[in-house]
């Protein structure tokens, strides 16, 4: 059951229930293209730039971003992947996360890393990714690109590049779908079942 994605989510969160598509495949594509151009602009090109995706959905996004950057500047921008399972700050509080490969086929020293993730939420995953990267080497700079920033930061982190700002309620879930992992592109908000809430 789809609703008009233009309903403001702040107030709309109260009114919404079920599933709402907030970005469709075209929106996702446009966001990535815009981010790619912002990256190029800010870094004055792609010299010394690498793109690293955070598992899981950050990885295909990083791949796409790197491909777009390569296309824009006409020179290859490498992509890598970092797994943060070993660096999480909730080890021992929940069942162990599945692990994935960390693949960084370049020397990090002196590079500018554009770290990519699908959703920026509390900031803890990014914090873990920063720690993981730092164990591999010392980049000149790390910048953060996310498809969706849903607010509710618990750490003093912000993204340098945002596909879409999406203020959400804590009991809502933001689901990013990507062609590579889910068969199609899109961003969806799911609300928890309503409970009576005292004002």
């Amino acid at each position, binding site marked *: 059951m789809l609703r008009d994605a233009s309903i403001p989510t702040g107030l709309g969160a109260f009114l919404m229930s079920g599933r709402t598509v907030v970005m469709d495949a075209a929106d996702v594509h446009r966001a990535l293209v815009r981010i790619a151009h912002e990256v190029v602009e800010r870094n004055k090109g792609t010299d010394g730039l690498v793109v690293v995706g955070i*598992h*899981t*959905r*950050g990885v295909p996004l990083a791949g796409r971003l790197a491909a777009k950057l390569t296309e824009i500047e006409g020179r290859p921008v490498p992509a890598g992947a970092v*797994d943060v*399972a*070993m*660096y*999480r*700050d*909730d*080890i*021992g*509080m*929940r*069942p*162990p*996360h*599945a*692990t*994935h*490969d*960390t693949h960084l086929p370049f020397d990090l020293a*002196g590079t500018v890393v554009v770290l990519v*993730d*699908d*959703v920026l*939420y*509390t*900031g*803890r*995953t990014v*914090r*873990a990714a*920063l*720690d*993981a990267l*730092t*164990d*591999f*080497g*010392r*980049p*000149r*700079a*790390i*910048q*953060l690109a996310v498809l969706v920033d*849903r607010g509710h930061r618990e750490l*003093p*982190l*912000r993204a*340098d590049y945002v596909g879409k700002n999406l203020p959400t309620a804590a009991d809502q*879930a*933001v*689901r*990013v779908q990507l062609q590579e992992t889910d068969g199609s592109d899109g961003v969806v908000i799911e609300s928890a079942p309503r409970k009576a809430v005292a004002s």
Partner: protein
Amino acid sequence: MINTKHLLSAADLTAGEITRVLDTAAHLAKVTDRAIKKVPTLRGRTVCNLFFEDSTRTRISFELAAKRLSADVINFSAKGSSVSKGESLKDTAITLEAMGVDAIVIRHGASGAPWRLAEWVQAVVVNAGDGTHEHPTQALLDLYTMRQRFPSFEGLRVAIVGDVLHSRVARSNVLALTTMGAEVTLVAPPTLLPARVDAWAVAVSYDLDAVLPKQDVVMMLRVQLERQRAGFFPSMREYARLYGLDARRLDAMADHAIVMHPGPMNRGVEIAADVADSLERSVIADQVANGISVRMALLYLLLGGPPEGFGEPRRGAPMGRPEGFGEPRGGAPMGRPEGFGEPRGGAPMGREVTA
């Protein structure tokens, strides 16, 4: 997700869980290749190596695995210590419990000792070899080694050759391999097979030459001198002739087949000296590297979860939420990660720095 608090027997893990361990080990193997051979995962946890039998190799493997996960390690070598006279396993357990260790890796000469230990401590217990019963981490690392060369365990033909009766490596491997769907054949003189081995899901043969050509993996077990003294077979010479791996038998094996040995090798007995020379390096190299990765994976999967054990209701995301679905929530993080909030000498987060 593995659903057992301890790792006492290879039978504690389902096929899915074994796969999870091996997958995780493959990822963690990369830690050894980095400049910083460490991840902060088990920071603040303490792992105790409680070894009642000598085993430098296994103990160091566990020690490195724990340290690479940033856990603290204490080594308790009980051989010849107060334990041999007076202080019992139970007393030792109570002491360790009072010290607040998170995991105890135990190697003991008595079958079943890890089970007793698990009754007396809150810590996670990992069996590093109990008597002639089991050695589950060895089996897992053996499976890992096999998986590096063969795509699937289903139908994989594995022969285990030698003193099965007294071998904890054999028992654990039989359990793990049959769980994964492999076809296991035990080859030994009848006196070195357990009395009711017919109840196991394995084939049995007394004829090594008949079995060898069809195998994908040939695992040679150590044969100890005291077995000959106890009369299980008439002489080492006869044993080597009938059940030893020599150059001729190596040739008779399929081209793709591999030889494995839990180590250390008895040259001239289960393995001819010349074969041992050529095999030893590669087999041992696999053992060492894979042992650390597999043990890292196990420590992570056993200790990386909430202390009360699995199956309890958890706050925040339910198990198995796909990555990217929001970020981990919950209470205060376990200590502040290093460098958080302090300049790491690099760019403070969120701001550009010019070098």
